[in-house]
């Protein structure tokens, strides 16, 4: 229900915005003519940054969160969570700036900063999601003769999956929102059109960057919302 509303809203917003721009001397068409090639090139860089940093973050963060949730990590995990909570408070621009001051400019420091910023919420949600699985379910599973690995794979992860996915969506929203800033430390992407447009007071150029960035963000969120909705068992999925 929420998902369909969101989609409709995105279309409505898109259409309204287009009308606004088309009335303004066909601004959108102007942008299309002038910046299609730039957008085509930069969007590839942009998506590359999102996929690489986001993908690496998911691949590392979920196992990390699982590891922190293991009983033998309990003492260490609470401290680590405190650290993660502080870490997620740090603004992404600051993360980029710090990454740049240590690693210089270019794609690598950008990916590293994006990776860190994306990693933290996923680790946290994976940890919290697994720890929130009620103890009596673990007791029931143990009592029925599941091994620790079976409990993790059949009980803990499936029951934490919704929370883990919520973390992934939050993290990807942060990621997609931060990628335009990657241009500032020399990693390219659609941020180039936005920031250059602002600096040159060139509204067409700026919109040529801003519109695809906004649409991409909505698209990513929409895709992961669909995955979250349809891949998680109905028994533990409030979306269904």
């Amino acid at each position, binding site marked *: 229900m929420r998902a369909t509303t969101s989609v409709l809203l995105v279309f409505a917003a898109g259409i309204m915005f287009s009308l606004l721009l088309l009335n303004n001397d066909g601004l959108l068409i102007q942008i299309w003519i002038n910046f299609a090639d730039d957008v085509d090139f930069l969007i590839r860089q942009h998506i590359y940054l999102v996929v690489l940093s986001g993908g690496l973050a998911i691949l590392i963060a979920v196992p990390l969160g699982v590891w922190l949730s293991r009983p033998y990590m309990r003492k260490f995990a609470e401290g680590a969570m405190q650290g993660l909570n502080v870490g997620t408070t740090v603004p992404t621009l600051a993360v980029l700036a710090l990454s740049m001051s240590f690693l210089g400019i270019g794609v690598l420091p950008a990916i590293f900063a994006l990776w860190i910023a994306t990693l933290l919420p996923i680790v946290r949600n994976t940890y919290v999601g697994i720890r929130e699985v009620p103890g009596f*379910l673990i*007791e029931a599973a143990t*009592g*029925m*003769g599941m091994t620790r690995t079976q409990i993790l794979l059949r009980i803990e992860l499936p029951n934490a999956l919704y929370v883990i996915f919520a973390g992934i969506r939050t993290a990807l929203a942060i990621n997609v929102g931060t990628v335009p800033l990657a241009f500032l430390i020399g990693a390219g992407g659609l941020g180039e059109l936005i920031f250059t447009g602002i600096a040159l007071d060139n509204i067409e150029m700026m919109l040529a960057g801003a519109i695809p960035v906004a649409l991409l963000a909505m698209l990513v969120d929409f895709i992961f919302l669909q995955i979250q909705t349809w891949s998680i068992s109905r028994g533990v999925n409030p979306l269904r």
Partner: protein
Amino acid sequence: MIRMENLTKVFDTPGGDVTAVNNVNMEVPAGEICILLGPSGCGKTTTLKMINGLIPKSAGKIFIDGKDTDTVNPVQLRRNIGYVIQQIGLFPNMTIEDNICVVPDLLGWEKAKSRKRAAELLELVNLVPSAFLKRYPKELSGGQQQRVGVIRALAADPPVLLMDEPFGAIDPINRAVIQDEFLKMQKELKKTIMFVSHDIDEAIKMADKVAIFKDGILEQYSAPDDLLARPTNDFIASFLGQDRTLKRLSLLSVGDVKFGEEYKVHGEGDLANAIGQMKELGHQNIVVTGPQGRARAFLHLNDILGKKGVIEEYRQALPAVANVKEDLKTAVSTMFRHDVSWLACVDDDGFYKGYITQKAISHALSAIYRDEKQNTLR
């Protein structure tokens, strides 16, 4: 069969060692329900959880069907012991079918076989398989979840069942229904069951034997009637309550105490015959039956003494009857309600089966003490 020898559990707490279970020796015979009863923290749950190794024991031995459980891998052991917990613990991410099949799947049963079994088990507890197999736990009521929790433990047909306050989380009405269903099931399945409860009435109703714990020590281990009649110490007596003798009423059925099935008169019969029977017995009343033997009414001696004629004229309506299947608690309650000292007993079809009197009931309750006296006198 479950046997425990010198079973002990010492917890290592910051405040020093705490002995939760102290040198317990007991045996649950195959096919019986043993209920562990006692106040909070008495060690009953710890004892139960040591059997399937959820809590490692500190000392002692546990044998299941004669086999020392130390020689079995705990994971394998648990797959062969049914386990039901108070919170039910259905896995919310799995359908009811998958929940029931957890242990069969772990044991590597063929899918077709385990799925068929799931459907059979659902039918056993009166849940329509086609409607429930594909549902998720959150789509079931508490009572339905409880039933699934129990049949899940039975799925792989384990000889032994451990239950930790399995009916603790449901409302009293549903609890009674599920308890009855469970007893009916047990009559056929004959599992060896160890069951933790804090509800004395539940223990009396369900158990073949009750084990009472206090501070980790097994205080008394006897059949419910024996326990109520002869608590071995003051703690048990007060734990069972001052009304423990009354609780025994629910252990006996009307059929156990009723008598005098042959004393009755037919509605068309002769008044003189009735008077004769009553005088012979020294009774003030006699039941009047219909042509096929159903209890219809009664005659009171004073009403008919010196009268002549047909029974029909003098009979009075029975204020109430007792079904032979009822427990004595219900029968006594009926007597008090109608302010009578006897009741005619009938079967499900209303046929007269004898009668019970308050005197006979108190006689039955005290029988156990009389036996005792005779034994000591002898």
